[in-house]
């Protein structure tokens, strides 16, 4: 069992899916011979041929729309949008068609497609290469939204997404594409698409997060442990649907919750979690629910990126603050 990075795990899952199901195919800009700009599809066109691993013209709306047509015909297209900042033109096809085809035809036509896109900041990329748009998709009915945060979860969740009979937006936190390696067995085992992962248990405060911020959240939990505070860290992993029970159960035990995400604060998905807690675990709360998030600003260009990203320090400050409540 090899130690692999998250982007390796993505590639492993894609290869597995292509192998096990002849209806799986990959399409996107530069996914072929170039192997994707992050190499997530490296080697696949050589193994599976240019009919199943397809470089597309530069047209995100059509990429999504073509995936809808392929999926309606029983294929399982896995489309790559090169960076999530370029996914906006695909939203119409996702919201108006992919997420509706089954409902609109009362199950006659279905839409088993996946759109993968690297997301998030922190790699000093040019403008538009660092966006976090999970909240937009989480609001759209009829689809699923999944965000892995480790090699093993990337492998299992991507397999699940590809096998799922409905459209899935699969957002890959590119900042940690190569941050850690982990032993991942290529055993074809999928992970459930509606379960959060409790990465660390703790009785004092719950940290709910996803994507690359899992890293800072775990670092903050380490630091808190030294201060005698036991933080529970939950990687939500699937945002639509999301595992409210995992969050609520934890918050009912700890009475305190921080939600950490990189996306802009206002109407970010952190709001949904906090709202849910305010609806269903109010009585158990001993401190206000805090969101540690990106600001309501345009993601700055590289020189100020660090000032935008929620830091371990910002998480710690917020944690100390909620711990100060009796």
């Amino acid at each position, binding site marked *: 069992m090899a130690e692999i990075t998250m982007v390796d795990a993505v590639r492993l899952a894609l290869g597995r899916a292509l192998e096990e199901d002849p209806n799986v195919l990959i399409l996107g800009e530069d996914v072929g011979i170039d192997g994707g700009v992050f190499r997530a599809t490296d080697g696949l066109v050589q193994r599976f041929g240019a009919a199943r691993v397809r470089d597309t013209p530069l*047209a995100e709306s*059509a990429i999504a*729309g073509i995936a*809808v*047509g392929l999926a309606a*015909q029983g*294929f399982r297209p896995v489309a790559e949008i090169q960076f999530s900042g370029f996914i906006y033109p695909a939203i119409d096809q996702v919201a108006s068609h992919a997420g509706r085809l089954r409902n609109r035809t009362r199950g006659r036509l279905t839409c088993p497609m996946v759109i993968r896109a690297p997301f998030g900041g922190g790699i000093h990329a040019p403008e538009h290469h660092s966006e976090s748009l999970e909240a937009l998709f989480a609001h759209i009915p009829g689809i699923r939204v999944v965000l892995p945060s480790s090699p093993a979860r990337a492998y299992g969740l991507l397999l699940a997404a590809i096998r799922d009979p*409905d459209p899935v937006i699969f957002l890959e936190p590119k900042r940690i594409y190569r941050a850690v390696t982990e032993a991942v067995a290529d055993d074809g085992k999928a992970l459930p698409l509606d379960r959060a992962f409790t990465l660390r248990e703790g009785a004092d405060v719950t940290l709910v997060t996803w994507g690359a911020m899992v890293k800072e959240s775990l670092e903050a939990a380490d630091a808190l442990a030294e201060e005698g505070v036991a933080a529970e860290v939950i990687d939500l992993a699937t945002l639509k649907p999301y595992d409210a029970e995992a969050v609520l159960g934890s918050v009912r035990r700890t009475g305190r919750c921080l939600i950490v995400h990189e996306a802009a604060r206002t109407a970010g998905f952190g709001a949904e979690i906090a709202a849910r807690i305010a609806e269903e675990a109010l009585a158990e709360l001993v401190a206000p629910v805090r969101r540690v998030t990106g600001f309501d600003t345009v993601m700055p260009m590289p020189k100020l990126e660090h000032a935008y990203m929620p830091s371990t320090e910002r998480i710690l400050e917020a944690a100390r603050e909620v711990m100060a409540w009796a």
Partner: protein
Amino acid sequence: MSRRTEGERIAQFDIWSRGYLSPEGDLSDAAPDFAHDRGELVALYRAMLKTRALDEKAVALQRTGRLGTYASSLGQEAVSVGIGAAMRPTDVFLPSFREQGAQLWRGVTVVEALLYWGGYERGSNFSGPREDFPICVTVGAQFAHAAGVACALSMRGEDRVAVAVGGDGSTSKGDFYEALNFVGAWKLPAVFVINNNQWAISVRRGDQTAAATLAQKAIAAGLPGEQVDGCDVIAVRAAVAEAIARAAAGEGGTLIECVSYRLSDHTTADDASRYRDDAEVSAAWSLEPVRRLREHLVAAHGWTKDEEETFRTEIRDEIEAGAEAYLAAEPDPPTAMFDYLYAELPAALAWQRAMVDGGEDG
């Protein structure tokens, strides 16, 4: 001397237009074989009559509060029926919202059509053409779906073809162009038909684009484009059939512009008198497709008053029966809005479904 140092013509493109049946009902010598077959023509005629009858009925139902907003295809029956007749049952149709003629031809029932426009999702669960797409309301999106369907068909090595239709307005959408470009780049078996009915709600064809023809938009994608008389069902059927044959033979896609005229309002929610002259509409009536085919049938094939009467009665009965079945349709339970959302309703949504279960109003 070299290409690089002199001005040089490097590409040349022609756009052709065709029509076989004149507004007066005269058939050109160039007409295809089927145009001399009484049975074929009668079938086309019947389908156009039926389309018109459905439109009339639907508009009447809407006017009396028994149907939702409806888009009549009055004056454009030849486009829709011509497409339907050109397609093989195994091909896949991806309609806009004004192509009931082709839908009926392909086996969508009158009830299903009315259910859709009456506001029931299950109207799109056609019992007939199971792989056809539902009506596409967002202008232009169907072209991308068609490229995807065509890609699927060709990947499976089938000789089937995806046929999508949109209006003149739809040719201004990025989706139309992006999809057309994919069809060219990937040599997909897809035929895009434009029902150029001269209007996109209140916007004239001439204000939609400076292109002299819509057919020439094919050139941007390296595809053949052709214009046909969209009030001539023979020409539409012939052009679409030829394009389908080319696509099925692996020769790639085609764009076909059918020049028609929208004799009705845009939809029942529209009042075209706000923006266009009666005179223009009256003039366009002289081109409409049903009468010219009837006149040709009478003159060349001895079509009788009796035959006409029988047809009209049969069609009226069929439409009435469909309308009655529609009016007697059982409502869907409110829970239906959850039951086809995902293959399996996520547990997280169970409580929402429970909320509407049993109650009419949640």
